[in-house]
């Protein structure tokens, strides 16, 4: 695994678009899901998706292979999302991602619902509604844990918070998810 990461780091230093093509192919859905979980908006997630890969191309030399590539990738995506949110809002960065401060970063949209747009069918709609009702900071860790199957330590690194914060968000997020999807 470390060898693979080291080889990937060397390839990224060369800024070879074919290497990037392979990575986009491999991580496209995971990265997009993650971006959607924090922005809650498909068009914004798509813009950030492109921005993230351009940033990977430009800053590829900064990836040293000490972390898993996806953690580094999600970290870049997260930074870009927060930067964008900061440009759109005048509030503080903490407020933007703090679950206690409401919904966080969900850009204004006249369409029916954010995450909901992606899914169709009754069951999917129910899940989408449930997910959309959860604060982005909780949605983010839930997705990293249960869709990406990332270990807690890596989640904490991505969200740049102590392990205890990552855990506490997961517990609260899981409770919110159960309430909103399970409806108890």
């Amino acid at each position: 695994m470390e060898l693979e990461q080291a080889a990937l780091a060397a390839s990224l230093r060369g800024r070879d678009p074919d290497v990037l093509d392979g990575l986009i192919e491999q991580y496209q859905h995971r990265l997009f899901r993650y971006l959607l979980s924090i922005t809650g908006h498909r068009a914004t997630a798509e813009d950030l998706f492109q921005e993230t890969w351009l940033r990977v191309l430009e800053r590829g030399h900064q990836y040293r292979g000490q972390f898993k590539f996806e953690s580094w990738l999600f970290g870049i995506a997260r930074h870009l999302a927060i930067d964008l949110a900061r440009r759109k809002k005048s509030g503080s960065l903490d407020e933007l991602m703090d679950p206690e401060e409401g919904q966080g970063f969900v850009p204004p949209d006249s369409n029916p619902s954010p995450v909901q747009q992606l899914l169709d069918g009754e069951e999917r709609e129910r899940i989408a509604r449930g997910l959309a009702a959860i604060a982005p900071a909780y949605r983010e860790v839930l997705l990293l844990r249960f869709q990406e199957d990332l270990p807690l330590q890596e989640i904490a690194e991505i969200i740049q918070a102590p392990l205890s914060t990552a855990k506490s968000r997961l517990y609260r997020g899981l409770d919110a998810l159960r309430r909103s999807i399970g409806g108890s």
Partner: protein
Amino acid sequence: MNRNDEQGQRTHERARLLIAARHVEGISAADRVWLDTHLDACAPCSREASAVADAIGSLRAAPVHASAQAVWRTRLAVRRRAEELRSQRERAVALWSAVAIAAGWVLLTTPFAWWTFAALGRAARAPDAVWQAGFLLWWFLPATVLAAIMAGRHAGERADRSHWITHTNWGEP
């Protein structure tokens, strides 16, 4: 609330904590045995465990994918940017090489060139301003030639890149 009620409440609370912990960070074998035993006997906690498992199952099953169009646009943007970066890097190398060559040329030849132009000017009985202007032309010659070469190369590269991007099959979905 009597002592038995309090103890029962604590048992259910512990079960709820363990149900969540099992999914979030894992629980010990002893806790797992205790929890499974409790769930077998307690319908409300068992429903809670099912609700949590269902919610996570729903989350895992949520089929969210990047659109082919967005992926295609991203690939195209990455290729364009990679080409820009490559071209910038090449131009930077060429520029610094030119600067180094010109600086070396100036350092090495200035005294001799000045002396030569002065001697030629005296031999031709030309006014000082004439041979000094000739010296200045000579002095700026390498930088001027290199700048012209680089400008020509840059224009050629831009034309090539535009042709390459326009005529490459990017497999648009």
